[in-house]
C-alpha cells in the first residue's frame, strides 16, 4: 500500500539507496537556503544505507570538503536506518538523546540531521559559516519546506503539529482544523514525516525522524506502542483516527436503531423477560415446598449407639464386650429427643456393674408404652476416656433378686484393660475413611429413623424405603429440601424439559457497563478505524460509524478481565473492539465479542 505522497515526490522503497537525478526545478529558495550552508546532508560516500534524495545539485557542492561539524552530523545521519524496519532500534529511538549516534528510525528522506551544537544548520552563504542561531532564524522565517513538502511545526506545549503551508492529499483523512489553522496529531505528523510528505520543524530547525520520535511520542499523549499500531494500520490502508467518545449512542438511541445497523435488543429483552418470569414462578414453587433443612447437628452422642437401641437386647447386656461401651453423658441423662427410647446402658462390664436397670427393663412391654421409670433422673456414668467416671454405686437392693448382693465398685481397673491405643490406619484405610466421611450419612441423623422407637419400626421403615426405591420418585431425592428440577412426567418434549432446567440467566456485555465508567486507569480505547475503501467518501467532520475501535497493549501485560471488557465495550458502543498487542514490533489483534449460545431444539 502506498503511503500518502505529494505529487511529484520521489517514493523510496524501504532499504534501497536512492541515487538522485538532476535537480528538479522545484528546488527553490528553500533548497538554496539549506544547500548553501554546511548543513546539507552531505553524507559521506560510504553511507550506503541512507538514501539521500535531496542532494544539492549546485556544481561543486558535492566536492566541497566537509567541515568538521558537517562530518559529525553526517556521521550521525549515517547511522540512521530506513524507517520501515521497525525493529528494536526503533524502540530505542524515542529515548535517544538528541544527536546521539544510536541507530535511529531515520527516514528515507528526511530533514537533515542537526548535529551537536547545531553546526550543520547554518544557512546562507557558501562555505563554512560561524555558528549562529540567530542568523538562521531570521533567514529562515517564514519556514518553507523544500519542494512540495508541507512544512509543519511541532508545538510541544499544545501537543499538536501546526501546518505552515497548505496541506496536501493527506488532508482528506488526517488532521483537524482549529481556529482557521490546519493541525495534525503527533502520530499523524510522525507518520507523514516517515512517509516523506511533510517536514517537521521545531524551534525553526527541521527534525530528524529520530528526534521526532523522541519529541512527539511521550507517555502522556501517544505512546510508542500506539504509534506502532497506528503506522501499521495506516500502511495497510485503513483510515485511523483518534477515539471519539462522543459518537457513542446512548442505549436509547441504540434501541431506536439510529444508524440502521441490525439490533435485536427488543427481542432479547423480551426473551429475557419471559425467561425470568418463568424463573420466578419456579422459584416461588421451590420456596413454597422447601422445608427448612433439619439440623444435622443433632449429635448422636446422646443416642449412645449407632443404631436405635432395642429394649429387648438389654438382657444380653452382661455378655457384651467392653469395646462397645459408648460415651454416655452422665449427668445429662438420656436425651430428650427420644422420649421413649431407652438409651444404651453402655456399662458393658463383665458381670459387675451391669446397669441395674436391665433387670427392670426386661419387664418392659415391647413397643411404645409409657415407661415406669423416669429416665431423666436416672444417670448413667460416663466410662469413656473423656470424662471418666468410674465409681459405680451399689444398686438399690430392692431391685435385685433375693440372694444377690450388690456392691459398689470402682471400674478403673477394668478400664485399664481396654485397648485405648489409637488405631493406626494404613494409607489405604485412611483414604477410605476420608471417602466414607464425605459420602456416608449418619443413620441417626435421619429424622425418620429418629422417630422409630424400636427395632421393629426401624425394619418397617427400611422395608418401606426398599419399596419406594423402585418408584420413580425415590425418597432420598424427593423428600429432601433440595429436589430435582424436573419431576417425572413433567417433560412432554425436550423443549419443555430444557425450559424447566434452565435456571441460569444469560447476560450481555453491555449490561451494567454504565456504572463501570467511573473507573479510570487501565486500558483505554485509542483509535477508530475505517476501512480503506471508504477513503473516497470519507468526510472528517462526519466520518460515520467506525469499522472497529482499537485498544493497544503490550504483549506482556495481563489480559483484560471481565470488568475491563465491560467498561470498554460500553464505551465502544456497538462498534467491534479489537485489542492490538505489540511484541517488539510484531502486532497481533484479538477481539472479544459478546455471544449467546443459541438453544438447540432441533433434534
Amino acid at each position, binding site marked *: 500500500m502506498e503511503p500518502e505522497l505529494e505529487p511529484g515526490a520521489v517514493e523510496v522503497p524501504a532499504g534501497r539507496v536512492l541515487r538522485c537525478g538532476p535537480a528538479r526545478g522545484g528546488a527553490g529558495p528553500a533548497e538554496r537556503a539549506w544547500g548553501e550552508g554546511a548543513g546539507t546532508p552531505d553524507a559521506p560516500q560510504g553511507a550506503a544505507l541512507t538514501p539521500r534524495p535531496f542532494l544539492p545539485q549546485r556544481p561543486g557542492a558535492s566536492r566541497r570538503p566537509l567541515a568538521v561539524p558537517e562530518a559529525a552530523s553526517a556521521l550521525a545521519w549515517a547511522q540512521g536506518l530506513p524507517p520501515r524496519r521497525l525493529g528494536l532500534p526503533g524502540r530505542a529511538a524515542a529515548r535517544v538523546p538528541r544527536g546521539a549516534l544510536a541507530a535511529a528510525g531515520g527516514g528515507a528522506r528526511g530533514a537533515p540531521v542537526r548535529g551537536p551544537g547545531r553546526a550543520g544548520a547554518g544557512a546562507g552563504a557558501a562555505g563554512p559559516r560561524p555558528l549562529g542561531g540567530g542568523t538562521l532564524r531570521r533567514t529562515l522565517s517564514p519556514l518553507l519546506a523544500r519542494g512540495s513538502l508541507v512544512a509543519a511545526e511541532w508545538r510541544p506545549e499544545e501537543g499538536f503539529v501546526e501546518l505552515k503551508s497548505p496541506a496536501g492529499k493527506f488532508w482528506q483523512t488526517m488532521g483537524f482544523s482549529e481556529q482557521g489553522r490546519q493541525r495534525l496529531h503527533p502520530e499523524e505528523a510522525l507518520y507523514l514525516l516517515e512517509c516523506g510528505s511533510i517536514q517537521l520543524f521545531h524551534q525553526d530547525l527541521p527534525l530528524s525522524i529520530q528526534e521526532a520520535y523522541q519529541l512527539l511520542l511521550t507517555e502522556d499523549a501517544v505512546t510508542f506502542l500506539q504509534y506502532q499500531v497506528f503506522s501499521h494500520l495506516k500502511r*495497510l490502508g485503513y483510515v485511523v483516527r483518534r477515539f471519539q467518545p462522543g459518537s457513542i449512542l446512548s442505549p436509547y438511541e441504540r434501541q431506536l436503531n439510529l444508524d440502521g445497523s441490525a439490533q435485536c435488543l427488543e427481542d432479547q429483552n423480551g426473551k429475557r423477560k419471559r425467561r425470568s418470569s418463568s424463573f420466578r414462578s419456579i*422459584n416461588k414453587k421451590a420456596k413454597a415446598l422447601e422445608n427448612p433443612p433439619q439440623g444435622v447437628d443433632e449429635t448422636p452422642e446422646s443416642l449412645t449407639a449407632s443404631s436405635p437401641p432395642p429394649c429387648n437386647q438389654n438382657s444380653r447386656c452382661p455378655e457384651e464386650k467392653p469395646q462397645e461401651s459408648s460415651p454416655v453423658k452422665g449427668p445429662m441423662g438420656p436425651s430428650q429427643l427420644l422420649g421413649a427410647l431407652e438409651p444404651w446402658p453402655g456399662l458393658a462390664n463383665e458381670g459387675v456393674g451391669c446397669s441395674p436397670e436391665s433387670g427392670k427393663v426386661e419387664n418392659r412391654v415391647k413397643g411404645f408404652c409409657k415407661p415406669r421409670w423416669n429416665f431423666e433422673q436416672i444417670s448413667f456414668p460416663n466410662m469413656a476416656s473423656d470424662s471418666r467416671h468410674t465409681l459405680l454405686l451399689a444398686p438399690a437392693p430392692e431391685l435385685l433378686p433375693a440372694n444377690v448382693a450388690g456392691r459398689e465398685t470402682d471400674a478403673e481397673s477394668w478400664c485399664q484393660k481396654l485397648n485405648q491405643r489409637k488405631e493406626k490406619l494404613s494409607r489405604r484405610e485412611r483414604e477410605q475413611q476420608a*471417602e466414607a466421611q*464425605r*459420602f456416608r*450419612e449418619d443413620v441417626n441423623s435421619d429424622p425418620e429413623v429418629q422417630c422409630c422407637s424400636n427395632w421393629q419400626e426401624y425394619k418397617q421403615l427400611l422395608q418401606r424405603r426398599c419399596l419406594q*426405591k423402585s*418408584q*420413580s*420418585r*425415590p425418597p*432420598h*431425592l*424427593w423428600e429432601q429440601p*433440595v*429436589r*430435582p*428440577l424436573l419431576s*417425572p*412426567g413433567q*417433560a412432554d*418434549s425436550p423443549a419443555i*424439559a*430444557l425450559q424447566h432446567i*434452565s*435456571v*441460569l440467566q444469560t*447476560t*450481555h*456485555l*453491555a449490561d451494567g457497563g454504565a456504572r463501570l465508567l467511573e473507573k479510570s486507569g487501565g486500558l483505554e480505547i485509542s483509535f477508530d478505524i475505517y*476501512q*480503506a475503501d471508504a477513503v473516497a467518501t470519507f468526510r472528517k467532520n462526519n466520518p460515520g460509524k467506525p*469499522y472497529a475501535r482499537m485498544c493497544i*497493549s503490550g504483549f506482556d*501485560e495481563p*489480559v483484560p*478481565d*471481565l*470488568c475491563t*471488557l*465491560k467498561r470498554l465495550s460500553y464505551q465502544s458502543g*456497538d*462498534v*467491534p473492539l*479489537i485489542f492490538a*498487542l505489540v511484541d517488539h514490533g510484531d502486532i*497481533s*489483534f*484479538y*477481539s*472479544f*465479542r*459478546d*455471544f*449467546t*449460545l443459541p*438453544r*438447540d431444539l432441533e*433434534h
Partner: protein
Amino acid sequence: MAEAVFRAPKRKRRVYESFESPLPIPFGQDCGPKQDFKVFTAEMINNNVIVRNTEDMEQLYGKGYFGKGILSRSRPNFTISDPKLVAKWKDMKTDMPIITSTKYQHSVEWATKLMQRQGQDESTVRKILQDYTKPLEHSGIKRNEEGQRHDELNSGTVSKMEGTTDREELSMPGDTQPGDGSQQADLCARKRGPGDEYVLVEEDVYDVSEQECAPNEELAPKKRLVCRRNPYRILEYLQLSLEEAFFLVYALGCLSIYYEKEPLTIMKLWKAFTVVQPTFRTTYMAYHYFRSKGWVPKVGLKYGTDLLLYRKGPPFYHASYSVIIELVDDHFEGSLRRPFSWRSLAALNRVSVNVSKELMLCYLIKPSTMTDKEMESPECMKQIKVQEVILSRWVSSRERSDQDEL
C-alpha cells in the same frame, strides 16, 4: 461491542450412529401419559461415579452421551470379539463375539487360576469348567424369559466365587446338568443369567475321512464356529464425571447414586463433590447452563480448556466451541481459576483455531450478596448470571477490502 456471529456446527462426514433422544428420560410426546420413568443407579467407588448395570449404561450413553466406558474410547462397546474373525464370518449374522480358540483357552486358564486362588481344589475346578465350557447349540440361543429361575442359586455361587476386583466375574451354573438331553431343552432350563456370556469360538474341524484320503497332503483344517460359554467374563462400566452425575440427579432426577448401598441426597452430593473436586461448583454451573441450552458438553482436556460443546453429540458434529469457565463477582472481578497472560491466550486461541473450534470464555457472575451458606445449596444457581465471550483473532492485512465480519 458487536455480537459474535453464530456459526453453524460442522457435521462429521461419516456418521455411524443414529440419534435416539436428547435426554435419558421419557417424553410425553413420545410415550403418552403413562410413562415408566426409570431411575438409573450408580455407585460411588473411589470418588468416582460408576454405572454398572448394562441397560442403564446403554440408556445413559445412548440418550445424551453421558459418561465414558472405562475400556473404550467413548461409547462403552468393549468386546473381546476379534474383528478379523468377525469379518471372515460375517454371513453368520450373529451378535455374539467371535474369538479364536487360543483366546478361549486363555479364558479357561484364567478361570481355573481364579478358582484355585479362591481355594477350590484342582479336580473340582476342572470338573466345573469342563461342564461349563462344553459346546452348545447356538442357533437357538435367545434370551429365554420363561425359563426357570435359577437366580438364587446363580447369585449364591457367584457371590461366593467373585473375585476381589470388580471387573472380573466368574459366572457359574447353579445347578448340575441333568444329563445330555436335547440341547435346546438345556438352554430353556437354564435362564440366561447376567453373568453368562456366550461366545463363538473358531475351532478346527478334524475330519477323519479327509485325512484318510490324502495322508500326504497337509490340508488346512476346516474351521467352524462353536458356541460356548465364556468362564472369564470381562465387564465394562460407564464412568460419569461428577458434573454429569450431578446433572442427572439434580436436573433430571433420573439417577440415584449409592455409597455402600446407601442412596445419597442432593445436598450431600453437592457438598461431597466439592470436597473431591474443589472447583466442582463452578464447572457444574457452566455444565448445567450448556446442557439447558441443548448442547452436549464433554471434557475439554485434549485442547487445554474446560469443556467442549457438541451439538447433538460427539458422533454427529465436530465440537463447535471450546470453553473456559471463570467465576467472578458482581463487580466482574474475581480470582481466576487460570490467570491468563496474552501469551497463553494466544496459544490457546491458535490451538482452537487449528481444530476448527471457537474459543469461548464463560463468565459466571455471582451477586456479591450471595453468602457462602447460600452456595452450599445448588439452588444458588438461580441467581447466577452467565456471560459468554468469544475470542477471535483479527488479521489486519487480509480483511482490508472484503467486508468480512470481524
